[in-house]
């Protein structure tokens, strides 16, 4: 498997619509960064919308790995993924 795990990715409709993606994807990747790169290969510009030049996940983007929001973690992109994980990429609900 070369450190890769089979996971499911659920993409919020706003991203799916913008990047013409299916809302549910299955892929084999090792980390969150690999996952984003994988989607970038399908939809140019996706990576730039998820994290900035410094590798920081954008303020209004939430990435959940198995229910845990990893967006504000240091080194969030290197979060390892394991077989059966579900990853959700959603915009945050902001405002009052």
């Amino acid at each position, binding site marked *: 498997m070369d450190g890769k795990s089979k996971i499911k990715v659920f993409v919020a409709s706003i*991203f799916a619509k*913008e990047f013409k993606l299916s809302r549910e994807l299955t892929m084999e990747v090792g980390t969150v960064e690999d996952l984003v790169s994988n989607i970038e290969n399908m939809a140019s*510009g996706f990576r*730039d919308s998820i994290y900035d*030049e410094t*590798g920081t996940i954008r303020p209004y*983007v939430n990435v959940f790995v198995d229910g845990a929001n990893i967006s504000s973690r240091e080194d969030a992109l290197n979060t390892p993924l394991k077989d059966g994980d579900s990853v959700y990429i959603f915009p945050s609900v*902001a405002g009052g």
Partner: protein
Amino acid sequence: MTVLVLVGTAKGGFIFEGSPSRRSWKMRGPFFEGFDTYDMIGEEGDERPALYAGVNTWTWGPVIYKSKDSGHTWRKAKNHPRFPKKNPHQLSVKRIWNLQVDRGKRLYAGVEPAALFVSEDDSNTWEGFDSLNFHQTRKEWQPGNGGLCLHTIIVHPNQGKKIRVGISAVGVLGSDDGGEKWRFMNKNIRADFLPEKYPEYGQCVHKIDFNPSRPDALFLQNHGGVYLSKNFGENWQEIGRSLPSDFGFPIGAHPHEPDKVYVVPVKGETRYPPNGEFQLWVSQDSGKRWFKSSRGLPQRSYFNVLREAMAMDGEEPCGIYVGCTNGQVFYSIDDDKSWQKMAENLPRIYSVSCVNT
């Protein structure tokens, strides 16, 4: 000839298409719905000018949109201004503030945190001006109230290697070699909020404008003070002492009359017009004398006009347009003798620009 007035707001962009008389306007939009649109511009001199918009989205970051059909449809650019990964100051682009197209068809973008980028292939790829963006003094740069932003880009129309930029609150920087080397150009500009009133840098420049037929003469609205430079920013002289307030954001050089300039004074403490009376002031002699222009403008008004929200259309007589933070757009087509309302109930207006098609 049709005038398009491009209006960037806190909830997207709008386009107002004028009738030949410019007495009625047809609105299109909103485009980029729900997103901060800090600037919309168009290339001049084309039947179907290319339009560009700097849009700061909360979902996919700050991005450039472009239109090739006078703003009927828009497409997100392939790439956007971005710092190099792992750059020395760990900078990432937060907002696009200002766009400019020069005659060589280069597209410039000024961003927050303060930096300048250029695209020479119609926004497919971008390159940063590293010697400015990672300037040796950068660690000392302080943000203005709106953030540390590069909000003004002036490219000399006859000498394209001469570039001047305005940064809040750093001041004016200039390059004479196409952006290789940069130097501060704040001579005689006040910084009332610093212990030293005339420092080399640290001024809070709000906007700079010029008449392309006399490009060496730059007009500048500062955070306290209106200024004129007769030598493309080498030094400045204060010209706004007789205004009811020398604080304001936009400044507009008349496109036909090189000595004519407009400002919108607001009180520095409150950022609404003096005595709550919306007023533009105009000088026809490069700031020696100023006259109030307010006929037709609301007399009770507690809003502001932001730095990018004044534009002129270059028609005869020249149309002047201002967009307000309360979502109103006013314009004059009789040489500022009177003003009419073009639009109201728009979101907070960030930018106004004109394109003649």
